[in-house]
C-alpha cells in the first residue's frame, strides 16, 4: 500500500500547501462567522446586481447583517424568490402577472436604457419608430438614417434578459421580430465593448454603463439623462425591483429595504449611476 499511501500523501501535501496558503484568511473568515448575525440571500438581475452589492456593503458596515448578492439574471432571481432559495429576488423588468400574484415587489430605483453606437457615428438622434425599424431589420443601412453608407450591425441582449424584455416592450417589437443576424451579447459590458469597437454597431445598455467609449442617441429628441426619466419625457425607462414572498422576508431583510429607500440609500443609488426615487 506504500504507493497508494504516497498518492494520498501527495494529494494531502498538495492540499495542505494550498490550505496553508490561505490559512490566515480561514481564521479571519471563522471569526466573521462567530460575530456575524443573520444572512440575507439575494439573487437576480445582473443590471441590479452591482448596485445591490454597493448597497449591501454599506448596510453591512452599519449593522451586523451579512448580505449575499448573486447575479444570475432577472428570471432566475424571481424563480429563486418564489421557491424560497433566496430571501429576495432582483429584477430589472416588470413582473409577469403570474409572478406578481406570488410576490411582493418594492421599487428600489429607476434605470434608463440608452441606445448606443460607436463614437464615430454621425447619427445622434433617432425616433422610437426608427429604433424599432433598426432592431426588426426594416432599416439596414446607416445611410437611411442620415449617416454614412454602412451596414447596420444590431447588437441585442439574450432572449430572457430583463433588459431585453424591458427594451422590447417599450420599443414595441417581439423577440421573434429581432433581425436574424443580430449579434447577441450576454451582458451590458459585452454590448458596450462590442459597440465601442465596431463602427457599424448599435446596441442598448443600462444608464450605469454609459461612458466616453460609446456615443448615445437622443430618442424622439429627448436626451437620455436622469432628469428626463423622472419627468417622464424619456420613454426608455424601467424600474429596478426587489421581490420577495410575504413569509420569506425577515426583519433584517425589511431593514435592508428600508435602508435602500432612505435618503442615504438613495444617495448610493445615485452615485452608482441609477436614478433615485425621490
Amino acid at each position, binding site marked *: *500500500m506504500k504507493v497508494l499511501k504516497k498518492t494520498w500523501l501527495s494529494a494531502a501535501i498538495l492540499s495542505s500547501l494550498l490550505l496553508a496558503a490561505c490559512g490566515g484568511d480561514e481564521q479571519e473568515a471563522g471569526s466573521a462567522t462567530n460575530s456575524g448575525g443573520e444572512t440575507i440571500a439575494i439573487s437576480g438581475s445582473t443590471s441590479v446586481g452591482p448596485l445591490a452589492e454597493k448597497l449591501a456593503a454599506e448596510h453591512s458596515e452599519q449593522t451586523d447583517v451579512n448580505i449575499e448578492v448573486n447575479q444570475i439574471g432577472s428570471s*432566475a432571481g424571481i424563480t429563486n424568490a418564489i421557491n424560497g432559495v433566496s430571501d429576495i429576488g432582483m429584477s430589472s423588468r416588470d413582473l409577469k402577472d403570474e409572478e406578481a400574484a406570488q410576490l411582493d415587489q418594492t421599487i428600489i430605483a429607476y434605470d434608463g436604457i440608452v441606445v448606443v453606437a460607436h463614437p464615430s457615428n454621425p447619427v445622434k438622434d433617432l425616433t422610437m419608430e426608427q429604433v424599432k425599424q433598426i432592431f426588426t431589420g426594416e432599416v439596414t443601412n446607416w445611410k437611411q438614417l442620415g449617416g454614412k453608407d454602412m451596414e447596420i450591425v444590431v447588437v441585442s441582449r*439574450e*432572449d430572457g434578459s430583463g433588459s431585453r424584455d424591458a427594451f422590447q416592450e417599450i420599443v414595441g417589437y417581439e423577440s*421573434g421580430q429581432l433581425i*436574424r443576424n443580430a449579434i447577441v451579447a450576454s451582458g451590458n459590458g459585452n454590448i458596450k465593448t462590442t459597440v465601442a469597437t*465596431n463602427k457599424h454597431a448599435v446596441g442598448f445598455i443600462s444608464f450605469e454603463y454609459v461612458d466616453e467609449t460609446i456615443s448615445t442617441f437622443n430618442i424622439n429628441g429627448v436626451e437620455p439623462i436622469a432628469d428626463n426619466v423622472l419627468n417622464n419625457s424619456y420613454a426608455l425607462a424601467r424600474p429596478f425591483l426587489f421581490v420577495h414572498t410575504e413569509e420569506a422576508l425577515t426583519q433584517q431583510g425589511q431593514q435592508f429595504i428600508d435602508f435602500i429607500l432612505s435618503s442615504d440609500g438613495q444617495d448610493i443609488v445615485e452615485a452608482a449611476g441609477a436614478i433615485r426615487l425621490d
Partner: protein
Amino acid sequence: MTSPVDTTKTDITKANKRKYAMEKVSSKIFLICALLSVFSLVLIVGFVFYKGATPFVAGGYSFIDFIFGSDWVPSEDKFGIWPMIVASLYATVGALIIGVPIGLFTAIFLAEIAPKSVARILSPAIQLLAGIPSVLYGVFGLAIIVPFLQNNLGLARGQSLIAVIIVLAIMMLPTIVTVCETAIRAVPKTYREGSLALGASQIGTIFKVIVPAAKSGILAAIVLGLGRAIGETMAVILVAGNALIIPTSLTDSVRPLTTNIALEMGYAAGTHQEMLFATGIVLFSFILILNFVLAKIAKGGQ
C-alpha cells in the same frame, strides 16, 4: 510442542494469508472506485437525457422540428436548432483543421528535433498554457482578433465564424501538444534506433515509425482537443456574435450549441430549460459519434 520449524511455517502461511486477503480487499476497493466513477457519470447522462427527452415524450413537441427547425424563439414557443448544429460543426471542424497539424508538428518538434535545453523550457511552458482559463482566450479574442478582423479585413462583424475557429484552434493547441508529446516520448528508443540503423533518415523515422507507433496517444490528444473545442462555451460567447442564422460564409456571426445553452440557461425555466437540455443531448451525441469514428480509425489502423 511445536518445533521452531513449524512456527516459521505457520508464520509464513499467516503472512501469505494476509497478503492474499489484502490482494482481495484491494482489488475490491479498485472495483468500487471504478463503479462509483461510472455511476456518477451514468447519473449525469441519465439526468440530462431524462430532462431533455421530456418535451418530446410528454410535451408533444416534434423531435424532427427541433433538429431541423431554423427558428429559435423561446418566448414564442419556437425551438429549432439547425443553425446551431451547422455552426458547431463548422467551428469544430475548422478548429481541428488548423489546430491538429500545428499541434502535432509542434509536439514532434519538441520531442524529436528541438535541442534538449529548448524542449526543457518550452514543454512545461506549453503544459502550463493548457491551464489558462478559456475565458482569457475569449478576452484575447474579443480585444485582439475581433478588432483585427473588423479593421484589417473590413468585416462589418468581427464576431464571426472565423473568429470562433481561430480562438478554438489556439485554445486546443496546448492540450494537443502536451498529450501528443507524451505519446511520442513514450515510443520505445529501440524503434528509433532500429529505424535509424536500417538507414532511414531522422525525418523518415519520425513520420514512418514514431508517429504510427504513438497513434493511440495522438488520437487521444485529438479527442481531448475536440472535447475542448466542441464543449467550449465562455470564450466562444464573446467572439461568436451568437446570431441565429445558418452560416453561409466564414464571416457570418454564428451561435454554436454550447453558446445557446450558456446564454439562456440562467433565464430559462420549464419547457425552455428542457429544450436547452435537449440541445445538450444533441451536443453529447456529436461527441459520441466522433469518438466512435476515432475508435474505429484506431482499430482499422492496427
